[in-house]
């Protein structure tokens, strides 16, 4: 195992009765990275995190932290600490005692423990709150105490279970950046669980998107956003525009796809496994789509004729909902950079051309073909 691996999860599964919460997941988390587990509720992300923390034992598989196999160790013997979703601050202890709680087991003298706890509180800018009880703090302050308490333990890996879920939108945005900065300056490994794709994108170096107990895609965060590998990931990342086509040819790393477009689409192939006549699914992000009055512009754009179904004015954007002649629905984001009146060149119920640059075509992984959805 390489020096730079912080957490290694190998074929880990967790069953609760008949329910498979985590289904043979394998992944590695690098030292010092901000790693996010992203997915809808019930996808197994929290269970996976809790297995790293030692709160659940895997039904199968192994977990290593650093060089050590921790699969069957109880939480108090693992070099990781957790920021709980509910913060789990001890209501009967003052802030300082909460933060110093675990230091007792580190064989620190009580003076050293207090010093360490104060340092940790300073790190989250909570000096002066030492004697308060958790009930006397605001939500944001509680969240910071929970963070300070975990950081005081100097864990090898910090686990965060949707720690921003209880904060309001504005505070959340602030804390996201603060957390990211803190992680970078401490050089600590963070494993962060969230169901909010924007939050994951803002903070993470890498993201594992989970669905039904499996990891659907693990990539650098911008990669997950730009190049979703599966329809689930595309959908979850806010790109629900699916097209069906047929592989025409594969040459020099370029895939030619025939679809209901007016011309063939040529995209960079990310795999060599494509064969002519393979059915293929691809997506185009809503912001990469354009609505035109005419087809076939000169710079190699692809276009399809569609019927306009709806228009939603959102201030910064206008969202167009259109339907192709095959009955597929697409969403188009148009930035409102032109005077408002101009966009009225399209009307709901009218016809228009939806076009995009072929390089923005993202082809779904081939193995998905067998189980195409909708």
């Amino acid at each position: 195992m390489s020096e730079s691996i912080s957490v290694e999860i190998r074929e880990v599964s967790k069953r609760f009765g008949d329910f498979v919460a985590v289904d043979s997941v394998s992944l590695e988390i690098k030292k010092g990275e901000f790693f996010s587990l992203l997915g809808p509720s019930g996808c197994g992300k929290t269970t996976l995190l809790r297995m790293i923390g030692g709160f659940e034992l895997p039904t199968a598989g192994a977990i290593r932290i650093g060089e050590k196999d921790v699969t069957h160790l109880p939480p108090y013997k693992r070099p990781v600490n957790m920021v709980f979703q509910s913060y789990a601050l001890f209501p009967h202890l003052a802030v300082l005692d909460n933060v110093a709680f675990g230091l007792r087991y580190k064989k620190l003298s009580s003076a050293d423990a207090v010093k360490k706890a104060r340092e940790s509180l300073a790190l989250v800018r909570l000096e002066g709150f030492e004697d308060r009880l958790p009930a006397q703090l605001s939500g944001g302050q509680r969240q910071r105490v929970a963070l300070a308490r975990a950081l005081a333990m100097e864990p090898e890996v910090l686990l965060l279970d949707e720690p921003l879920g209880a904060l309001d939108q504005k505070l959340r945005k602030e804390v996201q950046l603060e957390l990211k900065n803190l992680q970078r300056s401490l050089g600590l490994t963070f494993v962060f669980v969230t169901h909010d794709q924007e939050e994951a994108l803002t903070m993470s170096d890498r993201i594992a998107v989970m669905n039904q107990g499996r990891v659907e895609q693990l990539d650098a965060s911008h990669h997950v956003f730009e190049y979703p590998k599966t329809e689930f990931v595309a959908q979850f990342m806010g790109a629900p525009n699916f097209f069906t086509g047929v592989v025409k040819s594969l040459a020099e790393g370029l895939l030619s796809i025939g679809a209901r477009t007016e011309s063939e689409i040529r995209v960079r192939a990310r795999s060599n496994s494509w064969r002519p006549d393979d059915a293929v699914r691809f997506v185009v992000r809503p912001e990469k789509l354009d609505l035109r009055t005419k087809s076939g512009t000169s710079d190699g754009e692809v276009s399809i004729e569609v019927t306009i179904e709806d228009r939603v004015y959102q201030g910064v954007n206008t969202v167009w909902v259109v339907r192709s002649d095959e009955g597929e629905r697409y969403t188009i984001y148009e930035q409102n950079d032109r005077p408002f009146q101009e966009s009225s060149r399209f009307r709901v119920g009218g016809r228009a051309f939806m076009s995009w640059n072929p390089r923005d075509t993202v082809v779904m992984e081939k193995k998905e073909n067998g189980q195409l959805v909708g």
Partner: protein
Amino acid sequence: MSEVSNKSSPAPRLLVSPAWFFLGIFFVLPLVIMLVISFGMRGTYGGLKPIVDWWGYLSSGDFLANYRQSLDALYLPIYWRSIWMAVATTVLCLLISYPIAYYIAIVAPTRWKNLLLALVVVPFWTSFLIRTYAWMLILRTEGLANTLLMQAGLIQQPLDLLYNEFAVMIGLVYGELPFMILPLYASLEKLDLTLLEASGDLGANHASTFWRVTVPLTMPGIVAGIVLVFIPSIGQFVVSDLLGGAKSMLVGNLIQNQFSIARNKPFGSAIAFELTAVVLVLLLAYAWWSKKKGQEAML
């Protein structure tokens, strides 16, 4: 979900074993013994008569003798009185309690609520015996009520306020009232007031809002209160013993008599089980009702 809640863990069984041990010996066993005795026959000196011919005893139906005897016309007035007094107590408590529970939960200023509620809770926990005794002070011939009435010139002769069904009734209502107010308060407190506004908005006046919205929504509290008042009332014997006369005997007094005076334990046991059966049936009916309504039982 977590490892500690593993079904095979021995911890919970260890934790409940002292309770099982103690209650098994000193609670379950006594009830079983009493059930057995209720099928027995009274011996000469208040003990049990040994049974020689088991087959004959069982086949002749003699073992049901105590239960048969309990249905004797002699005792029917006692049951009847127990039931109607318990019903009357329950109805009176409900009528008295609903407005005050409504007042505390909805009308009273927020800052007074806790105090008003605490004032209901205190008698709930203070000695039932002493609270019953306090009524003796008021109702007896030389008591406060007669003294005041005579001083006011309203009566010439003291009234017989004590040792009758009227006094028992007062004692029962007085004793059980908090048991009705508290569950009513609990469900009125949970009532979403915007529902009342919605009802008014849809054209219902106060009365019909009350009957069509408030009452149905507080039904769990009403039913819980009825159960909580009716059950202790029907098994009551202190109130009737202190405030009632010979003519206001209740089932509780009948049972107590069989053990302390008549020395007929088998018969007393049989009546005790009949009383227990009535109570259990009521509680099961209540549990069934709560389940049907999809509500968490309040008891």
